C-alpha cells in the first residue's frame, strides 16, 4: 500500500475530503512523524502520544470538510488540531491521574513537560540548530509555531513590547533559515 505519487496540497485536500484511503496513507507518511513529534513535545509519553495521534487522524477525517485552503496551509491546520488534541489530553483528569501514578512508580523524574528531556527527538540536528539560535529567538519561534500563541500572548509571556516581538520574530527566522541552509 506504499504510495509513490506526490500530491499538491490542493489535490491532497480534495482526496482527503473524498475519504480516499491512499490520501490518508500519504498524509500519515508525510506529516505523521512531525505531528507525533509535536504531541511528544506536549505530553512527553509515548503510549499516550500514540493514542493522541490516532485521535488526531480521526479528527482530521471528520473535520476535513471544514478545512479551506484559502484560510491557510494544510500543515498549519494539522498542527492546530494536533496541538489542541494534545493539550486537551494533558488537561484531562485521566491523564493527570495516570501521570501521578507514574511519578510514584518512577520516583522523581518524568513529571515535567520540558522539551529538553525528550528521548526520541533527533538530537544531533536539533541540538546543533538550537544551540546556534539564542534562547530568546528560539522561544518566539516555538511559542508561535508549536504553541500557537498570538503576538500579544508572546509579548505577555516574554514580558516584551509588541514591537520587539515583531523584530525578534524577523531576526529569529532569518537566523534559522541560515542555520538550516535554505536559500
Amino acid at each position, binding site marked *: 500500500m506504499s504510495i509513490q505519487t506526490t500530491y499538491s496540497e490542493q489535490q491532497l485536500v480534495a482526496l482527503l475530503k473524498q*475519504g480516499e*484511503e491512499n490520501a*490518508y*496513507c500519504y498524509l*500519515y507518511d508525510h506529516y*505523521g*512523524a*512531525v505531528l*507525533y*513529534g*509535536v504531541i*511528544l*513535545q506536549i505530553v512527553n509519553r509515548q503510549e499516550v*502520544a*500514540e493514542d493522541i*495521534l*490516532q485521535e488526531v*487522524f*480521526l479528527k482530521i*477525517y*471528520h473535520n476535513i470538510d471544514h478545512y479551506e485552503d484559502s484560510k*491557510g*496551509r494544510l*500543515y*498549519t491546520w494539522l*498542527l492546530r488540531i494536533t496541538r489542541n488534541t494534545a493539550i486537551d489530553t494533558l488537561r484531562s483528569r485521566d491523564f493527570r491521574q495516570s501521570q501521578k501514578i507514574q511519578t510514584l512508580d518512577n520516583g522523581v523524574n518524568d513529571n515535567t513537560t520540558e522539551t529538553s528531556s*525528550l528521548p*526520541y*527527538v*533527533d538530537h544531533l*540536528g*536539533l541540538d546543533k*540548530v538550537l544551540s546556534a539560535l539564542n534562547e530568546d529567538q528560539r522561544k*518566539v*519561534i516555538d511559542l*508561535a*509555531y*508549536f504553541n*500557537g500563541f*498570538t*503576538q500579544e500572548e*508572546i509579548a505577555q509571556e516574554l514580558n516584551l513590547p509588541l514591537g520587539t*516581538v*515583531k*523584530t525578534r*520574530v*524577523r531576526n*529569529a*527566522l*532569518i537566523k*534559522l*533559515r541560515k542555520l*538550516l541552509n*535554505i*536559500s
Partner: protein
Amino acid sequence: MNLEEYISSGIIENYILGLTSSKESQSVETMAAMYPEIRDVITSYQKTMDEYGNLHAVQPPASLKPHILNAIRRERQSAVTSAKKIKPKENTLFRALHTWKRIAAAAILLLIASVVLNSIYISKYQKSEDRYTDLVRSHQLLVTRNQTIETRLEEVEKNMQVLLNPAMRHVVMKGVDKYPGMVATVYWDPQSRSAYLATTNLPVPPAGKAYQLWAIVDGKPVDMGMYNPAKEKGPIAMKNVISGQVQAFAITLEKQGGSPTPTMDQMYVIGKI
C-alpha cells in the same frame, strides 16, 4: 514603501509564524501574487519552518500506521452501513394466503404503491426541474460575471504593464490660465514612441465636441487621437509619434471627429516633457 523595505519590514516573517492579523495576511498574499521576489521569500521561510518541524519529528512505532488507517476505515464503513440499515421488512403475511388472494393483494398493493410513488416522483421531478432551472440561471449569471471580471482583470494587467515600464515618462499637463485646476497625465515611452492618456479631470464636453490630444513635435502640433472622459478611463493608448523630438503634450476641445490642426483658444491643458 518599496519592495526591499516591505521585505525587510518583518511582516513576512510574522506572517509565516501565523502572527499577522487577517488583514495583514491578506496584504502579504496580495503582494506575493504581484511580486515573485516576495513569493520566493515566503517559500524559503516555509521550507525553513517545515525543516524546523522535521527536526522535531519523531518516527512513531511502525505498528501505529496500520492501526490508524484501520481506525479511519472502520469509521468510514460505519458511516456507510448506518446509511444502509433502513431497509423495508419482509412481510410474512403473504405466505399464509392462497395463490389468487396473494396475487390480488399483491396487485392492489402494487397499484397503491405505484400511485403513491408516482405522486412522490412527480413532485420530486418538479422540484428538481425548478432547481435545475435555478441552477442554470445562476450558472449563467456566474459565467457572465466571470467574463466581466476577466475582462477587467485583463485591462488592469495591461494598465499595470504600461505603468510599470521603467522607460515610461510621466508628463503632467496643467490647465492654461483660462482653465486653472484642470489636469491630465500622459505616459510617454520614448523608446516605443507610444503614449497613454490617464487621470484627467476634464469636464464632459458639450454635444458635438470632443477633446483631442496633441504632441508638440519639433515645434509643430501632431494629432494623437480623440478622448472622451465620459466613456474612457485608465491609461488609454493614443496614437504613436512616428518621428521627431516630442517637446510637449496638450489637449484642445475640437469638433466631433477631431481637427487637422488645434484650435489654440480652445486649449485646456498643456505640459512640457
